[in-house]
């Protein structure tokens, strides 16, 4: 673990891999150090943002170093509502424009892509890109899918995609370079709802094939 400086109001904790991020974030989100405003997981790092009126960077660094990471697959037992361990089923119509391309890239047939995507248990590793966009990983999806060579200028809301080791669902219409394999009608992000984001770091997700989604 390396603690990297981010000015006077944050520190960046760099760890070995995504698995270590999941474990550290789950532990920190379950019991955040006092005075911490935001905890932001990413692919190799966890950012902690403080209110300097309530704590100091030194105190938060000490709290991080004393934290025992949860094992990556260990869900929260205390139902703290931080998203860690919540379970969500996402109904998907697997009719994405790139499904055949993805199958070709992986050397599978399209039915295999659908079956393996739907059989895997996914976990939201981190967010970013847009409010409510989760980067999902799964031990049951051990393959990398390259991004499209030319990003689309318009990806519809609810599109289910693949890129690298990740799967994700576009919470609203936006540009994007992910390979699209399906779509869902479920609302991923609603600013009138608390929490607004359906998929939060730590949320467990299953994609359920549904021709009517």
């Amino acid at each position, binding site marked *: 673990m390396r603690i990297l400086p981010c000015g006077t109001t944050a520190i960046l904790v760099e760890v070995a891999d995504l698995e270590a991020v999941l474990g550290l974030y789950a532990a920190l989100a379950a019991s955040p150090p006092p005075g911490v405003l935001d905890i932001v997981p990413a*692919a190799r790092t966890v*950012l902690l943002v403080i209110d300097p009126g309530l704590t100091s960077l030194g105190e938060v660094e000490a709290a991080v170093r004393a934290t025992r990471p949860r094992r990556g697959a260990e869900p929260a037992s205390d139902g703290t509502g931080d998203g860690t361990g919540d379970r969500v089923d996402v109904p998907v119509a697997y009719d994405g424009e790139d499904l055949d391309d993805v199958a070709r890239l992986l050397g599978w047939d399209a039915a295999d892509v659908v079956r393996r995507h739907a059989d895997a248990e996914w976990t939201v590793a981190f967010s970013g890109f847009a409010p409510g966009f989760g980067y999902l990983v799964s031990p049951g999806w051990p393959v990398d899918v390259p991004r499209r060579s030319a990003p689309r200028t318009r990806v519809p809301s609810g599109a289910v995609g693949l890129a690298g080791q990740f799967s994700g669902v576009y919470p609203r219409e936006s540009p994007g370079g992910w390979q699209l394999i399906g779509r869902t009608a479920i609302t991923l992000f609603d600013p009138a709802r608390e929490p607004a984001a359906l998929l939060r770091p730590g949320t467990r997700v299953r994609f359920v094939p549904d021709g009517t989604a």
Partner: protein
Amino acid sequence: MRVLRVLATGPLTTVQDLGRPGRAATGIGRSGACDRASYRLANRLVGNPEDAPALEVTYGGLGLRAESDVVLVTTGARCSGGFPHNAPTVLRAGRSLELGPPASGLRTYVAVRGGFAVEPVLGSCSTDTLSGLGPAPLASGAALAVGTSPGPLPAIDVAPVPDPAPGDVTVQVLEGPRRDRFPDAAWAALVGQAWTVTTHSDRVGIRLTGRPLARSTEDELPSEGMVRGALQVPPSGLPVLFLADHPVTGGYPVIAYVVDADVDRCAQLRPGQRVSLRT
């Protein structure tokens, strides 16, 4: 209900408060007033809670007509037009506030006693120009409702605060998380030249121009979280200084951070001004 009518907005006027902390893990940035010190001062001067919704006016141009008597104050960039600055002032029903361009600085805060009554979105009335969350920017003709007065007015006529500096500005920086991705010559260039603020600057960030910084490695950096004050260096070598509406995560290396106390002053920099970064 007391109402202010919007006559003109200038280039951009938004409602701001202290933003949406605590939601970054789900991709929701903090947003909020760019110059928090001026914003807080405005609320204090009219006896509001420090986090009451106020207006952030970019390069003047705001016109408001009072439809009943209100107490207003302006802070931050001092606009031409003769309205008292840093001084709470009664605007009688039927009279107008008209802000001309500021002589120095970029952002003016307008607070009304009682606060602007705006429906919060996810705990904040701030317009996040990057994600689109919060109320739309002000439009001419709109009616702004005024909330109820919370407490006594402070016994102060004029707050003795300096105007945003014209000309060259110096702010303090600290080494950032990816300082080690840059050769020492790049660090020397970062802190050894006066950078010029470009017109491609907004609430997301200030794009600087000058002698580009070299990187030691072109290896890709996985995206990572950041806060305001980050100086991110894209492949052009020209740093971007992130302000209130910065993205939650970014993939270009952050060479340095402006100390938080100086970010408010950066939010008052206007295109063409020069800024020196010193340790």
